[in-house]
């Protein structure tokens, strides 16, 4: 074959570059569509709900009159349920991921467990709700409480945290693990001083993605029986009826943001639609700020971890 002349080489490059340009255009277009949809949704809710963005809206309980109805019990409920969810799901998920990556022998049993964890992530959330209704609400007698809701959502996001933990651990080079073991460390010392800290940015990201998913879940929470109209807050630690303790609030009835929104959209009075839009916007802000925190933490922690 004859070597290409300079002109021919340039023609080849030009053809390649044309494809570059085309793809750039197509990619940008797709990205713009996705972004536009999100921005439009948020803007729409913001405008529809704008007249409710007053302090009252955040510190008022539910009410029969739309203009006086607020989201106090909903956002407090959401935050408390998330707290329980995180406290339950993070230790369980991280321990399970760590075990699977660092301790488990590679055999058929581990394989079955792995496949099942992926399957768990695909189980419809309503099924978790049914499961929780049977186990937490009735069997364990936790009732229709923050505790039941938190544990239900913890089950729901457990697979997300396990997978995130495992992926973060797998990204740690083998030579770091070997370096630790080579000075005589045990598996646990290696996990405690190296694997867990270095995997932390990835784990945190998974946790927050999981929580962001959980905070918007409605179906399982309705299944276990969250209230839709509630005019009190869970007791502050040590203030309830004696003997008041630190954790009385976990047994309290509650509502959460998505349920409050759902409830308002199903009212006949159209004035409540304004409330629903405003609450939807607040919920979006909650989710987006969780994501922002995740990005910030990951950036900050990754900065010091270089191989």
């Amino acid at each position: 074959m004859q070597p290409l002349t300079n002109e021919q080489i340039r023609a080849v490059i030009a053809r390649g570059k044309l494809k570059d340009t085309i793809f750039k255009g197509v990619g940008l277009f797709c990205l713009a569509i996705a972004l536009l949809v999100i921005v439009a949704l948020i803007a729409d809710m913001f405008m529809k709900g704008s007249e409710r963005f007053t302090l009252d809206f955040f510190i008022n309980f539910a009410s029969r009159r739309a203009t006086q109805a607020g989201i106090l019990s909903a956002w407090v409920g959401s935050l408390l349920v998330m707290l329980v969810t995180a406290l339950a799901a993070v230790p369980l998920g991280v321990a399970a991921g760590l075990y699977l990556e660092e301790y488990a022998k590679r055999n058929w049993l581990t394989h079955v467990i792995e496949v099942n964890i992926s399957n768990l992530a695909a189980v419809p959330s309503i099924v978790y709700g049914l499961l929780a209704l049977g186990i937490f609400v009735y069997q364990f007698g936790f009732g229709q409480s923050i505790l039941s809701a938190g544990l239900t959502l913890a089950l729901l996001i457990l697979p997300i945290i396990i997978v995130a933990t495992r992926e973060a651990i797998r990204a740690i080079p083998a030579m770091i693990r070997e370096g630790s073991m080579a000075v005589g460390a045990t598996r646990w010392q290696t996990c405690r001083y190296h694997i867990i800290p270095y995997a932390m940015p990835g784990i945190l990201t998974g946790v927050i993605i999981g929580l962001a998913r959980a905070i918007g879940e409605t179906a399982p929470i309705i299944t276990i029986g969250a209230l839709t109209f509630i005019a009190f807050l869970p007791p502050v630690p040590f203030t309830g009826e004696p003997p008041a303790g630190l954790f009385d609030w976990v047994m309290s009835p509650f509502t959460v943001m998505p349920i409050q929104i759902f409830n308002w959209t199903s009212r006949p009075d159209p004035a409540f639609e304004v409330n629903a839009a405003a609450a939807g916007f607040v919920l979006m802000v909650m989710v987006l700020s969780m994501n922002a925190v995740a990005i910030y933490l990951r950036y900050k922690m990754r900065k010091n971890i270089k191989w």
Partner: protein
Amino acid sequence: MQIHDNPALKAEARNLNFYYGEAKALKNINMPIYDKKVTALIGPSGCGKSTYLRSFNRMHDLYPGNRYEGEIRFFPDNTNLLSPEVDPIEVRMRVGMVFQKPNPFPKSIYENVAYGLRVRGENNKRVLDDKVEHALKGGAIWDEVKDRLQDLASNLSGGQQQRLCIARALATDPELLLFDEPTSALDPIATAAIEELVHELKKRVTILIVTHNMQQAARVSDYTAYMFLGEMIEFGKTDEIFIKPQDKRTEDYITGRMG
């Protein structure tokens, strides 16, 4: 191989075989490691040098499916390092290792060196400070880092990182130190510094070093072993191996006709 003025033995491989699953990577290796000497392992790529080296600190135990046969006797107490009754962690407390690519932990310089001591339960700040300084001096890197012990180790140059890894291994006073091509990722100047360090270290510790570089083996080692396809072809004093190898395959390799 009758050499009369042999120094004391530090370790000895006896009929050592090693398997990665079904694949046999080491074939009936017998070899002495002399106390406070540098022994070099040479041989073409894939002949089993790393596999052999990593048997001395039971690194293969970290992965499933690996199997040893035979013994590595460790002196003066004559323990068999490969015995299932011997805890690999105990072995690694006595046998240190420096890897091919510098692998400092993403922590401070100080914490990198102190790690081996912390693992042994040492938490006294004075003791740690003392031993860290001593180890960094041993690794010939103290002067370069003494003013920035709290800096991240990953900010050091490659050669400095490798000397830090040596210091990390030295901090716990190993009896035997394993080096797996410690200079293959380094430039000539950093390499020279490590070679000089190895020379210095043999006053304190027995050294087993894998190298691809014939000149390096000749420069740093007292004894040399030539491996080929998982077998130990020839072992002897470095001068003798390089001047008049007994085996044709060794000769081919060191004269550059192979490998």
